[in-house]
């Protein structure tokens, strides 16, 4: 114990008096979140029950916007498509993130920090730019098609590469993968290597280790990653806008148009946003229940 520790532990009263400032330190962020996050979310919810009249918004209580969503087959199709794209994106992203986290934790331990740095750099390097670049890669005369043609592999450009759901999913996986690695890797970091070695010295078989240690410990991280990926994929509107084409339109495009488009209807956009987020959360909850049930063993 260093002398500083000794002094600190002897003089407990002044130490606790030093904590008087804690509420004051938490206040700025707390107040900021309340004012600019919680209240705006509530405002959005309230707005979804109002009515748009031309450029004005009339404060009433009406379920018009929700009724419009429920009765429109177009919104239903786009919402289902959005959920489908979100689920496929999450179903591709999470296993890759899991494998990557596993390798970082147990195989390339010494390189793990470097790989993590590279993932973070890619996460923060140019959201718009990375989406747009996929247009250059996947486009009709883009990198892939022109390379295949040049190599003589194809005669005509492959059409579905761009302006399709395929393009949306390829782009979204690339955007969200680094974010999905973070919770899974952090959950796996809590698994001690000693546990695994002791268990395996005691004669546990690999599969048994995976089932009793790896999966239960990593599961919370996997669930978080799945929820993030699904929600953020379903809420993206820039990706479908730039690479999705007409068959890739997602609910995010429709919502964004209600706020900045020509036929803007803010209450309808707000209602669409809440319907979408609720659907996604409901599905995440249901999937979590199923996974918990499956992994009860």
């Amino acid at each position: 114990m260093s002398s500083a520790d000794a002094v600190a532990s002897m003089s407990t009263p002044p130490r606790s008096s030093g904590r008087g400032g804690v509420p004051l330190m938490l206040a700025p962020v707390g107040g900021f979140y309340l004012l600019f996050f919680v209240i705006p979310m509530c405002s959005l919810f309230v707005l979804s029950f109002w009515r748009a009249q031309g450029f004005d918004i009339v404060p009433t209580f009406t379920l018009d916007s929700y009724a419009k969503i429920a009765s429109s087959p177009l919104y239903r199709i786009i919402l289902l498509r959005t959920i489908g794209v979100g689920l496929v994106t999450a179903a591709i992203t999470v296993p890759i993130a899991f494998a990557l986290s596993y390798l970082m934790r147990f195989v390339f331990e010494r390189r793990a920090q470097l790989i993590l740095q590279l993932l973070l750099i890619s996460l923060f390097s140019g959201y718009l730019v990375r989406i747009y670049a996929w247009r250059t890669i996947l486009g009709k005369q883009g990198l892939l098609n022109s390379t295949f043609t040049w190599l003589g592999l194809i005669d005509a450009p492959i059409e579905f590469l761009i302006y399709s759901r395929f393009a949306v999913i390829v782009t979204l996986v690339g955007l969200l993968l680094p974010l999905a690695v973070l919770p899974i890797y952090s959950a796996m970091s809590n698994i001690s290597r000693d546990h695994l070695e002791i268990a395996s010295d005691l004669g546990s078989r690999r599969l048994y280790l995976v089932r009793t240690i790896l999966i239960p410990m990593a599961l919370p991280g996997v669930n978080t990653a799945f929820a993030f990926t699904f929600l953020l994929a379903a809420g993206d509107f820039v990706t479908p806008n730039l690479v999705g084409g007409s068959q890739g339109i997602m609910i995010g495009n429709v919502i964004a148009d209600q706020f900045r488009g020509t036929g803007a209807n803010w209450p309808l956009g707000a209602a669409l946003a809440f319907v979408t987020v609720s659907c996604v959360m409901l599905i995440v909850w249901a999937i979590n229940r199923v996974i918990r049930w499956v992994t009860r063993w």
Partner: protein
Amino acid sequence: MVTSGQRRHYGAGIFVLAVLLYLYAPVVVTVLFSFADSPRLSLPIQGLTLDWYASALANPLIVTALRNTLILAAISAVGGCLAGTAFAFGVLKLQGLRLRQALLTASLLPAVVPLLVIGIALAVFFRFLGSQPGLLNAAIGHILVSLPFVILSLNARLETFDFSVVEAARDLGAPPMRAFLDITLPLIRPSVVGAGLLAAALSLDEFIVTWFNVGTQLTAPVLVWGLMRRGVDPSINALATLFLMALLILIIASSQLGRRKSA
């Protein structure tokens, strides 16, 4: 699970490299095609040119966009840093692991709500307040979306902070402000500056929340978005490359600063 020998890891190594290639392909392609002299964006690249940079920088709107972007980045860096550092410290000083965890989780909430929803919610809120869309509204959005990341990175970096040093100073009679300025601040400065740079990078790159709140003002991403929607134009790649370089410098500087263990 615990494998011995390096031979078996070839497959795993290739997998990791393939994933990194997938993540970095867009960046590489953007930089590569910003120098290609054919406007058709296809391989093989015939020759190299700097024309796209010239035409990108000749855009008269770029000066305004850059100025606004820098203003927003500065506001987010300073605002996010001050509030985020206070919060991260406050959380660390709290008794009780569960309360600490709960507060930390709550502080990350804006990062898991789609930016589209945050953007429109703020737009609605400002409309209710009667505040015209503009740079100030966008700045508030930028601080909001960067705070979770600032807090997360500060929390990781300050976890090792040794409070006993400060307490020793206090016990020896230093007033709180003096102890903070002479002991705490020099120790945490790299972490705080690192977090500020991260906030600046996030702000520089922020498009969605900006788009719904900035009104008719221009920022660099809003300008780039306008160009992208108009069609394929190689000068976008040039602009994007310059933009990427600025971001990379900020991000790498931020992570290097965090690495220099302060305490």
